[in-house]
């Protein structure tokens, strides 16, 4: 017998493959590249709104509810419970948020009430899925139906008796303070209005994120790193994640899987409720029947987009919020300019595929797409409202299909768990 290989006897322990890793510097470089592209497109098309402070500020406002819903999804799915009921929990949040603020004459009471309202939805989901072990999608759909009906029912009972309220909407809620980084507001604005290459864009972006930011927005943004910290850096979070990856392993180490799943799903509801409360307290200033408009589903999509990670989902929410802000503010012109950005990005991808990956066919396809997008850009001046209305959705689809990343959901996500099932 001849053994031709005499090296050590471990099985093929994978040497780290040449996998692309998104590190912080890479991310920064990517963002910088994007700003440069946007700046070029802005100067070529004259669509100065695409990097204005107003746009960035609006993007932030639109991204927050989606991001909070996404964070809600993250908590629940990291614990292995699919939460398609985010929309319903968000609706509960809009209602209770407004109600709390009005009842206790304080927007912060509304924040708390909104979170509690959403958490109640979460508790129902936990009861159905964790305790009774029913199909998680069914429970979520049911919660969406009940959440809507219940709040409409409550509005008729509560808001219609309030001055300025009605069966479909609440009175105007008390407002919350905003935050400005002092001293730089006006200079940044002046700089932005100079319309210089890159400088004005950066000024606009900085203005958007430093001026007139509501405290709720700051809270929401802080919840992203906080969620990361809690889920990835604490014992509590490790236990929650283990419930989503391998609940029997957790059980075998004395972790009370039911308890942690319950907590995670309730927190999930609370976060979605916060997203709803943001809508009624900050974004709109009133509760309005139906004001979530499917944002819960978008939040779910943002979470999947972000690969079940807080940073990723924040990115997804930001992308959605940004494109939504573009289309709502200066729809036709801004989205038209975005076409140029897309064309440039596609061109870059084509070059990358050709030079770095030596994938000629793929490069050809991308190249054709580049030309097509550019042609549309060149022959039109503006994009009709009917098309701008789905800019965020189309962008999300495009980015996902280009990134073609291998998303990885928690291994036991959606799998009902019952104690004592370990083999």
């Amino acid at each position, binding site marked *: 017998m001849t053994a031709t290989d005499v090296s050590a006897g471990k099985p093929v322990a994978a040497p780290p493959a040449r996998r692309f890793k998104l590190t912080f510097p890479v991310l920064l470089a990517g963002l910088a590249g994007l700003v440069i592209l946007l700046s070029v497109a802005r100067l070529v098309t004259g669509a100065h709104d695409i990097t204005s402070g107003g746009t960035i500020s609006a993007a932030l406002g639109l991204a927050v509810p989606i991001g909070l819903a996404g964070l809600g999804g993250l908590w629940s799915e990291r614990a292995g419970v699919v939460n398609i009921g985010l929309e319903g929990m968000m609706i509960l949040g809009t209602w209770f948020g407004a109600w709390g603020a009005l009842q206790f004459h304080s927007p912060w009471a509304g924040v708390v009430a909104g979170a509690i309202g959403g958490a109640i939805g979460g508790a129902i989901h936990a009861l159905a899925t964790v305790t009774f072990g029913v199909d998680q999608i069914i429970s979520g759909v049911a919660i969406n139906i009940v959440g809507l009906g219940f709040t409409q029912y409550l509005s008729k009972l509560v808001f219609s008796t309030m001055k300025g309220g009605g069966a479909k909407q609440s009175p105007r809620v008390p407002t919350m303070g905003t935050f400005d980084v002092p001293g730089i507001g006006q200079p940044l604005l002046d700089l932005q209005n100079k319309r210089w290459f890159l400088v004005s864009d950066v000024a606009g972006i900085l203005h958007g994120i430093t001026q007139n930011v509501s405290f709720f927005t700051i809270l929401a943004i802080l919840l992203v790193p906080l969620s990361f910290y809690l889920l990835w850096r604490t014992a509590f979070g490790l236990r929650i994640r283990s419930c989503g990856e391998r609940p029997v392993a957790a059980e075998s180490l004395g972790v009370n899987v039911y308890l942690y799943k319950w907590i995670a799903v309730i927190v999930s509801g609370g976060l979605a409720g916060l997203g709803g409360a943001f809508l009624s307290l900050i974004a*709109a200033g009133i509760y309005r029947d139906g004001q979530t*408009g499917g944002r819960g589903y978008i939040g779910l999509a943002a979470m999947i987009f972000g690969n079940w990670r807080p940073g990723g989902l924040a990115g997804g929410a930001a992308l959605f919020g940004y494109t939504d802000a573009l289309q709502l503010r200066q729809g036709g012109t801004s989205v038209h300019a975005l076409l140029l950005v897309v064309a440039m990005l596609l061109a870059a991808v084509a070059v990358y595929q050709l030079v770095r990956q030596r994938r000629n066919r793929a490069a050809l396809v991308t190249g054709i797409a580049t030309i097509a997008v550019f042609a549309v850009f060149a022959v039109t001046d503006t994009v009709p409202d009917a098309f701008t209305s789905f800019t965020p959705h189309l962008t999300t689809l495009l980015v996902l299909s280009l990134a073609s990343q291998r998303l990885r959901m928690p291994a036991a996500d959606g799998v009902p768990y019952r104690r004592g099932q370990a083999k």
Partner: protein
Amino acid sequence: GGSDAKDETSASASSAAPEAKAKAKVGLAYDIGGRGDQSFNDAAAAGLDKAKGEFGLETKELETAPGETDAQKEERLRLLASSGFNPVIAVGFAYSASVKKVAAEFPDVKFAIIDDADATGPNVSNLVFAEEQGSFLVGAAAALKSKKGNVGFVGGVEVPLIQKFEAGFVAGAKAVKSDIKIQTKYLSQPPDFTGFNDPAKGKTAAQGMYDGGADVVYQAAGGSGGGVFEAAKAAGAMAIGVDSDQAKTADAAVADVIITSMLKKIDVAVYDFLKNFTSGSVKAGESRYDLKAGGVDFSTTGGKIDDIKAQLDEYKQKIVNGEITVPTTP
């Protein structure tokens, strides 16, 4: 030009008035949103309430659910008609086909439909409005008040009815200043009607317009309109309300940004219809509530447009006497 509602007569004779002694039972079917939407449906409800108090009517109001078929709407009207409700009022053009069908089945019941002239019949009164005329006037007001020569229009959902508001507004603004910049935005596309219920989007769109140089924005966006006022308040700019006198109904904190509102007097139309019903003088066919009939108008609450009221009245006169014909499509 429009014709007077009072002069409008239908070919067929209207049937006998109900006995005044018996309390009339009025059935009313709402469009999506229903009572409490602080917009279109509420205006109808206001007319109903007023008539109810004055004429001692018995009323029943039914709401609709989103995503219904015509058959389901028909059933609602049928339920009212067959349960002894007469007259039956349908709020919104969505009932067009159903009213036409059900009215034929119940020839003894009087029907009224708001915003629709297609459903005709000997027992159907069509209460329609010249929204474009009222919008023309507020468009003119916007142009006159705008210092930057830049105004905006936020529509809730891009449907022909709302496009009438846009068309009138644009025509009015251009009549004042032909090179004026007009920004328009619809918040959603049918059948996504969330554009009528999303104040956050209304606010963002209006902010975009103010940032884009507008200083007056007119909204025809139902429940999203509140967001437009919020944006105006934040930008220190002006806004124009719709349907009712929103300087009165909006929250005190934002009411002062509303320089005027385009009034669409659905309440008056409903009230008139019920009044005629009780007095036995209901007429079938189209009753057109236009400027001339006082069915649409602009409000002056708050005195913000007192300085230009004379000019607006001039435009009003021209429309009433036919010198200006306002377009209905953008």
